[in-house]
């Protein structure tokens, strides 16, 4: 099981636009990726490609989240997704 911790960079948190970008990218990965707030049990983790789950996390700017994935390409997938979370998309 590969695991990464990322800090939400968007100033508005995981709102509609950053959540859309992230959910789409998660859906494109070859492996299933989950997302949870840091400190939450792995069983509580949600589907990272679900925009509704992402918005329901209530992650604000600076919130730490844990991404997890298993199988071939898991590490590369997580690296790509961490990069997206740590970019402030509202500044673009």
């Amino acid at each position: 099981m590969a695991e990464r911790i990322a800090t939400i960079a968007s100033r508005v948190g995981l709102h509609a636009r950053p959540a859309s970008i992230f959910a789409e990218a998660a859906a494109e990965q070859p492996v299933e990726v989950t997302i949870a707030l840091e400190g939450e049990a792995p069983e509580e983790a949600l589907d990272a490609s679900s925009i509704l789950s992402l918005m329901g996390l209530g992650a604000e700017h600076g919130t730490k989240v844990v991404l997890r994935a298993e199988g071939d390409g898991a590490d590369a997938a997580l690296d790509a997704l961490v990069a997206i979370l740590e970019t402030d998309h509202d500044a673009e």
Partner: protein
Amino acid sequence: MSEPIQHDDARTFAGVGVSAGRVIGSVKRMPDPVAPPADGDPIAGGATVEEESERLKQATQAVAATLKERASKATGDAADVLKATALMASDRTLLKSATKLVASGTSAESAIWEAADAVATQLAALGGYMAERATDVLDVRSRIVAELRGVPAPGIPDADEPFVLWAVDLAPADTATLDPAKVLALVTSDGGPQSHTAIIARSLGLPAIVAATETTALADGDVVFVDGINGTVTRNPGDAEARLAEAYASRTELPAFDGSGSLADGHPVPLLSNVGSGEDAAAAAAAGAEGVGLLRTEFCFLGRDQEPGHEEQVAAYRAVFDAFGGRKVVVRTLDAGADKPLPFLTDDSEPNPALGVRGYRTDTATPGVLARQLAAIAEAADGSEADVWTMAPMISTPAEAARFAALCAEAGLKTPGVMVEVPSAAVLARQLTAEVDFASIGTNDLTQYTMAADRQLGALAELNDPWQPAVLHLIKATADGGAAAGGDGSPKPVGVCGEAAADPALAVVLVGLGVATLSMNRRALPAVAAILKTVTLDDARRIASLALAAGSAGQAKESVRAQLPDLETFGL
């Protein structure tokens, strides 16, 4: 627009024109709202769980594809929101929980309804921005159910070509999503001149007809001529209508308002704006408004369980005063009751709230709120450059006017006034204005009370028209009363702050009747200013006497419009 015109089936439907303009276009009907499926409704028609799950999946994908397609054509924030809603429609977590319900025998419609409800409730609990997104989830849910039922998606229809929107009536939520680039005109079978449809049409400058009862017969794709000036809709229009629409399309663009209202002879008619918040006030100032003729203070109070505190009120009023430093701001004290109930102030069990304890009258039933509001207005006025005037709504007798003036004096407010909305106030205007410094006529309520016709009832739209000569006579009585109350000194000024002031033809009549200032939605300023510039004070008086002599609202409007050729030039 380029559809062939058929002459054999022309038919004209009558309604009430609430926003000028003449266009020809094809009709799109606003779909009926999606009715909720029965709770736990079972899978119908012997379909298997697998077939039902597949049907649900197909519907979510179809809705996602439509929204994605719309997102690709939109720009900016609208594109972001549409893209996010498209993702919501095909959301795997949502589909998974709905599919689980289908597996237990629930129909696809009922399953997605329930699953989305759970998500929306969760988002609403997060509050703020996320709570607003809960509305998007519910919208997506309605779209999926409409898709499953094979009926049109709810909300304002989408089309590549601009169209004439037909609806029973529009709610505020519909008007928020109305794209003025896609909608040519609005036609409703219900609603009246003060309905949301009318207000949004005027603010967007779209031709609009309301209370056109028989237009329920119009179908999608019908070509119609919408005449917002005469209040008619003609199906299958002919050459005459085509010429009128062309004339409107080639109208002269209105010049921007230069910030100084006056007649052709230089007689000044200050043009002010009606505002309902600090933001609104800044926009009105930018549009050239010479002041605020009506500050609706309800924005501080509505949707509250408790009276807002002193500091909060001071800050809210100050924001408006700051936008109009050095200019006049007329504050209306809290106008609760009737269509604006407040839990701490009004009694919702009244059998007839329009004739109940509302406006100034709430101070007798619940003393204190008004005095505290006046204290907040006084403090906000003290620290600002604005010339603050204060008036009470729903004043009916000179004694009430006197008492309000005394309350203002106690609070340290120097210019007290009254609104004239109740016919008794217009009839006794001289005695009433003698007690205060000014009066402002609220034509919406004055019309409703003079004609005994509920503002909200589409069926009474014809009566509920400020062009009714009886209403014009009461406006004249008020202006005359204000002039007489001044005695040898200067007359007590009488203004108008209702929707009537935003109608350029009626504005000329009002000035002719002796009204000193006009206050309106800021978007009406250019049209009213341009038409006032075409008449002298003598012209306005002569035109007003034509309206007073008319036997009906229609006749008054027609005879006045015939005197103002520039209305046609500007397509008003």
